């Protein structure tokens, strides 16, 4: 447990009378490919918002590489090595695809604004490197030809990929993906699964993802945590979770689209 990359203990979040997250415990080991699943409103996105400092927890702690994240600004959490994507895509619409990725590098820029204005050699070097790396990242996610396009002109699935490229630009050790496959067709989903696996295998980035597409989750994730009404109802390898009666009950009881057993996409 002590070697975990991300440790969450007793994390709770209350909105008015609603307990969105009830004393969650979760650990993400280095090199993990972990999934967080559960019916709508189970508290999955809230969990991401709490980790990244967007929402203040009502109780509990989050540690990243042993360092408490409580009370830090989202930008600070990001610079410690936690990057995320958003369920409802939040790109910088009026910027180009490449510019969106370049923004991701900015948090780690060393040159100060004066050297940027005067285009001192130190800044110029960094700027060139950012451009080269940015183009590489776009190639990696398969948007290499679209760098000069306006971000809002991309197709839905491409926008999701751009969010991942932008998050990668911030140089994360842990990547939080919020429904990365939503709105993608089966081909795109398969390519996404390959991409996520490459991030872990080739780049050593640990991944925690929220997803409704059970086929995607079952094939990709090596461990799962199931939330319902803000509580963990099951955790373990996909195969174990799949046959857990509490999980089946939560999905069927909630009257949700598909039960996890059927493995279609939600």
């Amino acid at each position, binding site marked *: 447990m002590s070697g975990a990359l991300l440790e969450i203990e007793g994390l709770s979040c209350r909105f008015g009378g609603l307990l969105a997250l009830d004393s969650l415990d979760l650990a993400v080991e280095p090199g993990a490919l972990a999934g967080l699943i559960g019916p709508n409103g189970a508290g999955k996105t809230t969990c991401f918002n709490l980790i990244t400092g967007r929402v203040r927890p009502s109780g509990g702690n989050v540690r990243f590489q042993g360092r408490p994240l409580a009370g830090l600004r989202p930008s600070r959490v*990001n610079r410690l090595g936690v990057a995320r994507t958003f369920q409802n895509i939040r790109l910088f619409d009026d*910027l180009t695809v490449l*510019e969106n990725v370049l923004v991701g590098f900015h948090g780690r820029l060393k040159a100060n604004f004066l050297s940027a204005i005067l285009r001192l050699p130190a800044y110029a070097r960094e700027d060139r490197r950012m451009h080269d790396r940015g183009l590489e990242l776009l190639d990696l996610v398969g948007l290499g030809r679209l760098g000069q396009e306006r971000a809002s002109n991309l197709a839905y699935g491409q926008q999701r990929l751009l969010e991942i490229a932008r998050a990668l630009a911030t140089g994360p050790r842990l990547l939080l993906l919020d429904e990365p496959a939503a709105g993608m067709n089966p081909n795109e989903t398969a390519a996404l699964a390959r991409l996520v696996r490459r991030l872990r295998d080739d780049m050593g980035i640990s991944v925690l993802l929220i997803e409704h597409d059970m086929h995607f989750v079952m094939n990709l994730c090596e461990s799962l945590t199931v939330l319902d009404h803000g509580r963990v109802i099951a955790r373990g390898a996909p195969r174990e979770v799949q046959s857990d009666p509490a999980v089946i009950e939560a999905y069927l009881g909630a009257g949700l689209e598909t039960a996890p057993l059927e493995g279609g996409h939600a």
Partner: protein
Amino acid sequence: MSLAGRIFKAGPLPDAAGTRRRDTWLTLAACALGGGLLWLAENQAGGYVVHMLTLSGLFVVLAVSYNLINGFTGQFSLEPNAFVACGAYVTALLTISPLEKEASFILEPLIWPLSVIHLPLLPALLIAGLCTALMAFVMGFPVFRVRGDYLAIVTLGFGEVVRVVANNAQSVTNGPLGLKGIAHLTNLWWAWGLAGATLFVVVRLVHSSYGRALKAIREDETAAEAMGINAFWHKMLAFTLSAFFEGMAGGLLAHLITTISPSLFTFFMTFNLLIIIVVGGLGSTTGAVLGAILFTFGGEWLRVVEEPATLFGLDIPGIPGMRMVVFSLILVGVMLFARQGILGRNEFSWRWLLARLGMGRGRA
């Protein structure tokens, strides 16, 4: 699309460095041409035209820096009158001779050491710019805790507070009487020199990684934060930088009109700047420059409506004050029918101009 967008749109061409060098030479040539025109104006044109040209240079400084915070960073604020006031008072207090100061401060003497300081214009301007930037920095802490229309009203409140202080802090500002006998030192070269410096800094900043960060904050602050950009400090950067230039423009304004008093720095001044950047196009530096020049000369041209005239044999009495009514209608009209203003977020670029002239190889 922004200029940065246009440059990228062409892609990292093999001759990108060559294009950049070409653009630099073209810009330098344009500056030389502009300088020549100013020289010509100074020597050939009448005093009135020179005055208007000088004033339009100051408006360019103000509009371009105001647009940095409102247009590029997307933080709609209403405080430039406070910054201009601060810069004007600081510069004037530093350049007026001690004798003159003793003579003007009738009700309460000016506090030491201001009473004995006597500086040339350039150091006084720089100090004024720094003081104004410092004021913006301090203001920024409460101001950037809120967003949207609350930001607008808080910054407007700051403008009012500065005016009230200028009216009451007798021993520094001479109260409602204001400061008189400021030397007429601002000429075409000062005004357009500062305009050039402002343009250089703002354009370079906007095209740098910092500019991308500011635009990211404008587009989606939550996402920008999540990508490791500290939104608060970046807003502060844009705010203090724009205050620095607005403060210096205030100093030059004081040395152009030679008398200042608190009633000069009301919300009215901010309103004029708002028209300029809205008409030019929020988020376009080119638009801000265009808007400033249009405003200065358009305002003069609009004097027609205030003077008696004969139209088709009818005598129309002049209506004093009508200009401002027209300006307000223009602002409302632009918002209702042409929200992008003249340029939207587009910028001038040499590539565009050359393509227009049929000389460029690149796409426009």
